[in-house]
């Protein structure tokens, strides 16, 4: 028997149940309880209805979260993004003096005019945006009205999982004198998205974003928003609409921030500015691996290597707990942090969180490592000219054995190139490091000092061969099920996901018979999706390969596969790359919702050959490049590079994070009408401090690279595992 819906305060349900019992025949039980719940549902919607307003907008963009107009201008192919509907949206009255709160999603298309209709009042009112809570993606509106009805609030602490929850909206029925639209579900979880939201299985979509989630007695739990644990922005989480995973921001929290919002102050997330040392957010100690320059942590004097013991008095066993405590915080909020440094505990009693963080910047030593080399240490394949490595006197053929900060007591052994990459990810440019190196000549062991810099914009002109020691399978476990499952766990918000295994491994003998090479057309039987795959004929499972995933331009679905494979053939053979080309569902181009299906194909391919995970690249042109950007940002566990021609970033770039580095190669023709937009995209990436190569190709409109830029792209591809 369900009793969760029978809280003492649920007078409406109680009345309904009582009524049903009095009126029902003897054989009542569940059947009449159903009737009672049904009645209570309607009564709850009616009780909340007077505070649920209708919002209409005019002007603005057709597509939000995407590049706006497509490459063909208005009427051109759709760009990855969300087509904004034309219907009304929903808001909730939060102050009798004309303040209405709603989901920022409803204004993601930047409308020029906003009108609000209040139930029971005949005229539409002109509304103005007062402020936005960027952490919860809520917008406060003001209309000129008095004595508006406030909805009853459900106390946050009384909310229980399993309670009935009704999502109300004003989109479907234009008449505000009618009851709002209803979707019925339950509270699926509280404290979701780092304590910011309730989760519900009621259907949440643009039909009710901004509307309330109410209890069975009509009290408001919170305001419905699209939300995502992985992304921020007003459209993040939209892809989950009607999926049974919906979110509502507690009304109690909204009311607490109302005074600040009313003053027109946009609210931003409070950031401490630390990165974890270990990629495992759950099973390892919360040790600070990196501190962002000029962040709250930096200003307060936290140090790399500090282990966080407690925040605000709450014990912190792992980094996930840190996320949970800091996740709901706002800019300006003050936290108390206790850390263990050495064998001493230190308390920082008041660290004021900052609203912006200086972006993480990748540090650069200036070498390319030899690949597929099971010998301990990292053999240097190439030293970048004018790099810290060159200045320190490192030479090709030398083997890096140990590395540490110049001021560290001891250097840590570096057994593989993954370890070296991971060690460098903890360090910022400007840091001095000591490197123990075994010289090629005479195997003499020396220690040198280098001062790390940022990744240069230049691409090496010529890279020495060979690039691989050809022993990728040596010392690796035999083919086993877990090795074959290439699905990495989903990355968490701050990206502290476990690094994927560098290379999937196979039993060479068994694979010999099965390995397919050449140009292959494949169809996913289950989904009916097609993709092509090009595996060079000289494929050797003992050499790890890079992967280029080509996203075709609009209208080119599958027609350009053989051409692309031919273009890259020589390079793939010499530099060990495999290429694949998924096909979009629509001839007009890619849509972001195809990401998941594309990634299923990519991961299948990744499981079938020997791959170097440092060189998995999304590549595309025009609309395809926009998809490459999108996929690159949304499958960061897989992609280490994104290369585009004439493509505009569809969404704002995500933050650069230490342990999921992504490099960009952005090119555009100087005659491309999108030149300005591509430049803006480049600027946005630079702001996030991503390693970026930007090239304007002369005398070019919307064509593929010229010879010079193409040569640079190839060297960029082959140098993605630079350290």
């Amino acid at each position, binding site marked *: 028997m369900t009793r969760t819906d029978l809280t003492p305060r649920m007078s409406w349900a109680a009345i309904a149940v009582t009524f049903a019992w009095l009126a029902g025949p003897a054989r009542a039980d569940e059947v009449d309880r159903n009737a009672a719940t049904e009645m209570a549902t309607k009564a709850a919607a009616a009780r909340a209805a007077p505070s649920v307003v209708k919002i209409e907008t005019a*002007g603005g963009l057709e597509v939000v979260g995407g590049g706006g107009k497509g490459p063909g201008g208005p009427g051109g192919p759709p760009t990855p993004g969300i087509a904004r509907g*034309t219907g009304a949206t929903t808001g909730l009255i939060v102050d009798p003096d004309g303040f209405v709160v709603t989901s920022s999603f409803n204004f993601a298309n930047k409308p020029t005019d906003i009108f609000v209709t209040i139930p029971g009042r005949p005229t539409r009112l002109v509304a103005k945006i007062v402020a936005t809570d960027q952490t919860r993606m809520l917008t406060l509106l003001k209309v000129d009205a008095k004595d508006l009805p406030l909805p009853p609030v459900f106390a946050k602490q009384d909310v229980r999982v399993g309670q009935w929850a009704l999502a109300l909206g004003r989109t479907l029925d234009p008449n505000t004198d009618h009851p709002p639209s209803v979707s019925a579900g339950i509270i699926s979880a509280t404290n979701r998205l780092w304590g910011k939201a309730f989760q519900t299985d009621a259907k949440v*979509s643009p039909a009710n974003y901004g509307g309330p989630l109410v209890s069975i007695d009509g009290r408001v739990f919170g305001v419905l928003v699209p939300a995502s644990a992985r992304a921020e922005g007003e459209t993040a989480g939209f892809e989950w609409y009607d999926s049974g995973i919906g979110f509502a921001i507690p009304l109690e929290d909204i009311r607490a921030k109302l005074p600040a919002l009313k003053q027109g102050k946009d609210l931003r997330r409070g950031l401490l500015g630390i990165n974890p040392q270990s990629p495992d957010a759950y099973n390892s100690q919360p040790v600070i691996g990196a501190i962002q320059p000029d962040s709250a942590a930096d200003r307060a004097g936290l140090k790399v290597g500090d282990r966080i013991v407690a925040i605000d008095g709450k014990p912190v066993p792992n980094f996930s707990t840190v996320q949970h405590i800091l996740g709901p915080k706002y800019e300006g909020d003050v936290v108390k942090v206790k850390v263990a440094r050495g064998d001493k505990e230190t308390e920082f009693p008041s660290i004021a969180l900052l609203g912006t963080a200086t972006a993480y910047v990748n540090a650069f030593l200036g070498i390319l490592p030899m690949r597929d080399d099971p010998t301990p240490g990292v053999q240097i394949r190439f030293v970048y000219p004018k790099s810290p490595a060159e200045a320190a006197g490192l030479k090709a053929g030398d083997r890096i054995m140990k590395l540490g900060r110049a001021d560290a007591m001891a250097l840590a052994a570096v057994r593989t190139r993954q370890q070296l990459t991971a060690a460098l990810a903890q360090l910022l440019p400007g840091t001095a490091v000591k490197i123990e190196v075994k010289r090629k000549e005479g195997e003499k062991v020396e220690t040198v000092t280098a001062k790390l810099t940022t990744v240069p914009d230049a691409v090496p002109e010529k890279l020495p061969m060979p690039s691989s020691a050809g022993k990728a399978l040596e010392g690796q476990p035999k083919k086993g099920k877990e090795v074959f499952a290439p699905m990495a766990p989903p990355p968490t918000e701050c990206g502290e996901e476990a690094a994927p295994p560098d290379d999937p491994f196979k039993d060479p003998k068994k694979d010999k018979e099965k390995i397919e090479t050449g140009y292959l057309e494949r169809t996913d039987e289950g989904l009916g999706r097609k993709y092509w795959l090009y595996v060079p004929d000289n494929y050797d499972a003992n050499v790890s390969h890079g992967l280029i995933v080509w996203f075709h331009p609009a209208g080119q679905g599958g027609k350009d596969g053989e051409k692309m494979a031919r273009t890259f053939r020589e390079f793939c053979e010499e530099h060990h790359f495999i290429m694949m080309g998924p096909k979009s569902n629509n001839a007009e181009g890619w849509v972001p919702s195809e990401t998941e299906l594309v990634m299923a194909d990519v991961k299948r391919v990744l499981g079938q050959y020997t791959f170097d995970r440092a060189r998995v690249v999304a590549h595309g042109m025009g609309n395809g490049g926009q998809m490459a950007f999108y996929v690159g940002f949304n499958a960061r566990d897989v992609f280490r590079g994104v290369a585009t021609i004439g493509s505009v970033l569809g969404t704002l770039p995500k933050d650069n994070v230490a342990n999921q580095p992504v490099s960009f190669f952005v090119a555009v023709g100087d005659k491309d009408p999108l030149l300005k937009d591509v430049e803006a995209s480049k600027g946005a990436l630079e702001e996030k401090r991503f390693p970026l190569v930007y090239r304007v190709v002369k005398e070019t409109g919307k064509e593929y690279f010229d010879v010079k830029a193409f040569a640079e792209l190839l060297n960029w591809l082959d140098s993605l595992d630079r350290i």
Partner: protein
Amino acid sequence: MHIRSGTLVLSVVAAVVSAPARGAAADPFNEVSDKTNSKMVKVFGAGGFSRLNNFGTGIVISPDGHILTVASQLLDTSDLVVHLYDGRRLRAEVMVVEPELDAALLRIRVEGKKPGEPTGLDLPYFDFAEAVKRPAAEPGDWILGFTNQFEIALRDEPLTVQRGVIAARTKLSGRVGVFDFPYTGEVYVVDAITNNPGAAGGALTDRKGNLLGIIGREIKNTQTETGINYAIPVGAKVTITVKVKEKDKEEERTLTLSLPDFVARGMKGEYKPTRRDPAGRPGDGGWSGIVFVPNILSRTPAYVEDVIPGSPAAKAGLRPDDLISFVDGEPIVSITAFQDFLRVRTRPGTTIRVDVRRGEALQTVEMTLGVHPPKPTPVPPPKKP
């Protein structure tokens, strides 16, 4: 959780104690599901290529084997087959289709019986006339959906049953930007994900198994740009305008079509589908005389740049810089939306109510549209973005 209310405790306890049949009580929809399933058929017809499926769902509305379903491409074949709840596979034929109601009436054919002759099937069925008499469902009412979505069932396998609530009773069509849907009447929007491939023609019932409507197609709601799950109510009505030629005179007539009438007369073989004269479809619409700002954005707001002297807009008192915000209560999101509205929804002589934003206030004016001048009004050429 504590229960403090005495009445509440009493009522719940009493209800439990007085329940004689635990089985039915534990599974509140079991009986209803079984009963409803026996009144449903799986329909197989044309399709099976590209994205058109060759399967659908149908509702039995007579013991003789009349079936109500959606007017889809599925029916474009002489080789129509239905699977009954008990596994029987029988031929069926289309009796009549009404595109304006998006409804079709089929009849099962039994070997050895002539068309029109009683089939002698004696099937369990929904009494459609009775269903129409019941009051319409409201937002919050519990519903069940019975469909063969994704061809999940064949022969005697039961259909998919989904549970949800009525989200809204509203019109999908006839609003600005929503033109490509044939049916313009009210629908039930539901919060269960019912409208999947093959679901069209399924039954929407209340929680007791009473028929509420026919589950519709897979369509996108342009209001939200998301898929929408809807059913056409048993009492569906649409009002349409048709052109009728009598002798040499052509005149417009307003007709009201209803699903109950379609079913009642259709089953007797007396229903004649409406034929809309193609000329009855949108023409040029009425003329306002507003000159808008250059329409260069995807959604340029409908700001008035100028008003042609003597035009309907001038007579209505519109001025430069007014923003056309609503017409007949419907939001005008862009210049294109306004132009679409006039083209599709008005004729010369139609009077529209226009809400314009002038400064911070909305003002309402009425405007009687005129005839387009012989030459198109010169509009400043759009500037290159």
